[in-house]
């Protein structure tokens, strides 16, 4: 069966410091990968998605970037964090082919920028 791992679960970072959130998927190959952010415990905003190694699409201009160095690894980064980057970040995956594929989410990472 497929599993998704996301870490760290929580982190507190000072303004201006770098960020790296990692996500890996097991039990599947060539997945679509996604990073979402949830602010204020409600709305979910798609940040990045990837359909293959090195293929990253950004949905919203921001202070963040994403990379996919391996087929099942997705990394969210920032060189200098802003206060507004605080939130709950969710990695997700789906199979690449097929209609209406379900998107499955990791357990999320809480980021507090102080």
């Amino acid at each position, binding site marked *: 069966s497929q599993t998704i791992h*996301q870490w760290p679960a929580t982190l507190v970072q000072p303004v201006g410091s770098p960020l790296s959130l990692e996500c890996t998927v097991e039990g599947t190959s060539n997945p*679509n990968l*996604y990073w979402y952010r949830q602010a204020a*415990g*409600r*709305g*979910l905003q*798609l940040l990045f*998605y990837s*359909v293959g190694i090195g293929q990253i699409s950004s*949905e919203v201009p921001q202070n963040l970037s994403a990379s996919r160095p391996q087929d099942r690894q997705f990394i969210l980064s920032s060189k200098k964090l802003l206060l507004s980057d605080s939130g709950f970040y*969710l990695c*997700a995956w*789906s199979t690449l082919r097929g*209609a*209406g*594929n*379900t*998107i*499955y*989410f*990791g*357990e*999320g990472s*809480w980021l507090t920028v102080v």
Partner: protein
Amino acid sequence: AQSVAQPEDQVNVAEGNPLTVKCTYSVSGNPYLFWYVQYPNRGLQFLLKYITGDNLVKGSYGFEAEFNKSQTSFHLKKPSALVSDSALYFCAVIPRGDYKLSFGAGTTVTVRA
């Protein structure tokens, strides 16, 4: 532009009573429709989805959803709610030919004992 509306921020029901969480969508074509649930400080869990076929879709934990094309709605239902169903529920859509989920704002469900 596509959108998903969950008209109720909060739904309160007594345990054992039926639960309904409303969702309407504005997406061209015949989108794929989803429901997810989120417990505090957790990721989203998939409940059910509609792709095609029978308008009544059954999912996890006794939940079901009814697709109504003429009303562009996809309401989530449970015949008898449990206290453990208290959580945040999201409706979401993927347009045909796409693979990105767009979410509604979420509905907080509270089931009182």
